């Protein structure tokens, strides 16, 4: 191979690699943003810690507060009711033994949200502060996100919502999917989410919300001090709701 | 058909080809064959005309042809000989409805109906003012130019709307009334002035074309019949308009029966849209509309309903026409560029109009304004090229029918 052939080969190779990389980045750009790549490490990254040891059996303060704050539909029919946060029995295998535990289940605001990846109209997306949210103006009601969510946190409005407790906040009409927004409207103006406030008001203080990127925040402290767990961590969705005593 | 048998008995040998008759006095006439004209006719869609063997079946079978001076047999003969003068000054081609009864009966597949359609196109070009523009309108390669003209003119008008509005004293409405997002982009005074100006130019072209045609009719041999005028001009006009509205001549058609209904859909749909448009643009001076005129109309306002129904009828009629032409039939032609250009323009106007309406109701901005611009371009091409396109049949066929009634030339 003489010098000229080498130059030609090298030039071609560089061109192919660079354009291929550019094309790959261009084509996978929207997927990358949905999978949580390229997140600014210095930005606020909201996360939640739920201390199940403090959560009292039979208490529904957070559930009621959420429903009250966000006008979550309650038709009185279990098939139609929508829940942003609920108490469920979780099963886990410890050794060969199946253990049942009552936990609070809500949207995990994953850093790599599968719901946002499958949304055909980009109605579901991850905000810059890590909150996964639905733009109901855009949602076409295809329910892909409900199938994609490994936590079953997504709910669907099969009927127009008549429950309009908080007139300052919108309700949802028939045909859109929804889930916990981590009370983004309250966090934006510096207030804690409704469930956190309600839990403190009943004296339990089992739910905490804070900036996971800030090592001094309450949630970061608890996560570093206790052996917190996240639901279905093995799926790699990077959920941001941490449980103590799971 | 007993009438045709009677004809054969009474017609003298020379009469089915009056041009070949030597003049009564003077030397014999020599006919000049225009080969170029034959080639033009063939190129424009009358490629079958040389198959004609002049048997006269077409004239005998035509439901509209008069018994004493039949067509389209003589036109077929003229066309194959290339007698340009005779063909272009022949009013009979306008009495033909292109119903294809002659084409289906033609033993040679010469498609007289299509040949007559091409002759009509040439005749439109011949009578149009200015002629060169009519030639452009009927050439597919001129489409970019024909669409470019309205795009340019509309862009200029919209570009200068602010300065023009200030100079003429039209300012955006400031009252407490309804505002219409289209009128923010395309003010009504601007569009009215724009279309009135170019409409007036078109009207001049129509009048010149009409006068030229009337002169041709006055000179025509076929129409110069002895005896008094059987009825007044006014009564002839009334009779013809009644005939057009009821589609009496169309219903004699056998081969393309559905043309009766498709033409009704198109005519009445267009009529409905014209009526609504007139109602809107005259709302400022119309005492009936002045009191509570709301524009844009509510969806269930009778005028809006009429416009929507008219638009749908127009679209349905156009699609029946396309379906009719698409049917596999070797005898019936699939039409010529002259037809298709007009049909496409109609469909594009209505389709872009409905697209504008739908985008309006789903409030997609700025898409609705872009589509509205496109709609205006198509409206311009349809209306302003009227005297040069097949749309001109509205003028010439009506005049031909009126003159036929007026001169006593009976159409059976």
């Amino acid at each position, binding site marked *: 191979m003489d010098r000229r052939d080498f130059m030609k080969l090298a030039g071609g190779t560089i061109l192919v690699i660079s354009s291929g990389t550019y094309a790959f980045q261009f084509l996978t750009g929207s997927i990358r943003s949905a999978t949580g790549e390229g997140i600014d490490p210095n930005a606020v990254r909201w996360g939640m810690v739920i201390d199940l040891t403090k959560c009292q059996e039979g208490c529904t303060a957070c559930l009621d507060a959420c429903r009250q704050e966000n006008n979550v539909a309650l038709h009185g029919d279990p098939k139609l009711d929508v829940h942003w946060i609920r108490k469920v029995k979780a099963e886990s295998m410890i050794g060969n033994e199946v253990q049942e535990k009552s936990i609070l289940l809500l949207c995990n605001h994953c850093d790599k949200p599968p719901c946002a990846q499958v949304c055909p109209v980009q109605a579901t997306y991850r905000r810059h502060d890590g909150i996964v949210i639905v733009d109901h103006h855009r949602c076409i009601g295809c329910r892909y996100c409900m199938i994609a969510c490994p936590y079953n946190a997504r709910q669907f409005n099969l009927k127009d919502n008549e429950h309009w407790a908080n007139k*300052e906040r919108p309700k*949802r009409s028939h045909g859109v999917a929804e889930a916990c927004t981590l009370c983004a409207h309250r966090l934006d103006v510096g207030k804690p989410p409704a469930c956190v406030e309600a839990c403190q008001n009943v004296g339990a203080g089992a739910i905490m919300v804070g900036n996971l990127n800030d090592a001094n925040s309450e949630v970061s402290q608890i996560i570093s001090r206790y052996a917190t767990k996240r639901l279905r961590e093995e799926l790699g969705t990077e959920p941001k709701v941490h449980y103590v005593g799971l | 058909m007993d009438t045709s048998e009677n004809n054969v008995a009474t017609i003298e040998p020379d009469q089915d080809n009056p041009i070949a008759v030597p003049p009564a006095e003077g030397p014999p006439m020599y006919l000049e064959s225009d080969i170029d004209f034959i080639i033009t006719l063939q190129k424009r869609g009358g490629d079958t005309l040389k198959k004609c063997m002049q048997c006269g079946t077409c004239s005998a079978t035509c439901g509209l042809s008069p018994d004493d001076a039949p067509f389209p047999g003589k036109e077929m003969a003229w066309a194959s000989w290339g007698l340009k003068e005779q063909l272009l000054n022949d009013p009979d081609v306008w009495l033909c409805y292109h119903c294809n009864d002659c084409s289906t009966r033609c033993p040679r597949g010469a498609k007289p109906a299509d040949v007559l359609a091409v002759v009509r196109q040439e005749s439109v070009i011949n009578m149009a003012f200015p002629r060169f523009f009519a030639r452009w309108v009927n050439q597919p390669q001129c489409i970019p130019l024909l669409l470019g003209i309205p795009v340019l003119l509309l862009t200029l008008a919209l570009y200068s709307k602010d300065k023009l509005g200030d100079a003429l004293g039209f300012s955006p409405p400031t009252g407490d009334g309804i505002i219409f997002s289209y009128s923010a982009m395309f003010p009504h005074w601007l569009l009215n002035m724009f279309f009135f100006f170019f409409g007036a130019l078109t009207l001049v072209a129509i009048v010149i074309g009409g006068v030229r045609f009337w002169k041709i009719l006055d000179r025509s041999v076929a129409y110069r019949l002895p005896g008094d005028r059987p009825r007044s001009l006014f009564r002839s006009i009334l009779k013809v308009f009644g005939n057009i509205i009821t*589609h009496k001549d169309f219903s004699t058609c056998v081969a393309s029966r559905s043309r009766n209904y498709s033409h009704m859909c198109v005519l009445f749909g267009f009529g409905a849209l014209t*009526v609504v448009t007139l109602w809107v643009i005259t709302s400022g001076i119309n005492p009936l509309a002045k009191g509570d005129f709301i524009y844009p109309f509510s969806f269930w306002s*009778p005028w809006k309903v*009429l416009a929507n129904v008219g638009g749908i009828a127009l679209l349905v009629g156009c699609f029946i026409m396309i379906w009719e032409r698409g049917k596999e039939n070797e005898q019936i032609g699939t039409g010529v560029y002259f037809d298709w250009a007009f049909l496409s323009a109609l469909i594009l106007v209505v389709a872009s109009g409905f697209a504008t309406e739908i985008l309006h109701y789903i409030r997609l901005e700025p898409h609705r304004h872009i589509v509205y611009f496109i709609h205006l371009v198509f409206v311009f091409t349809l209306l302003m090229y009227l005297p040069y396109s097949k749309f001109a049949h509205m003028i010439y066929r009506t005049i031909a029918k009126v003159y036929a009634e007026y001169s006593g030339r009976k159409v059976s």
Partner: protein
Amino acid sequence: MSFKNVIQSRMSLIAVLIAVLIIVYPLGYSVADYISAGNAAGEKPFLERTAPEITQCVEDTIYMRYHHWELLHAIREDVVRYGKRSEVSLNNCRSCHTSREKFCNKCHDAVSMKPDCFGCHYYP
């Protein structure tokens, strides 16, 4: 001749009659409307002014008249996508334009352009 035969032989005439009736109907409607209304001018939809001391919306009146929907879209984008909340919001429109019936619907109902905000957002 039976009724069916009459219908069949006059088919195109009947079609023409129906078409003409449909075309003429709105004109008749308008004339009847004009006569029944008498000389009284018809009620034109118009916006009801808010309290006289308020003279300025968030933008110029002309801008609001022609572009309020664009402004609402822009606010929506800011709030929902980027969490930028400000004083300018649909909720705050209510503080001056107190009633949907007297404000939005005045024009929107008259021209059949139903805004779809109020299925989810509260506006009395």
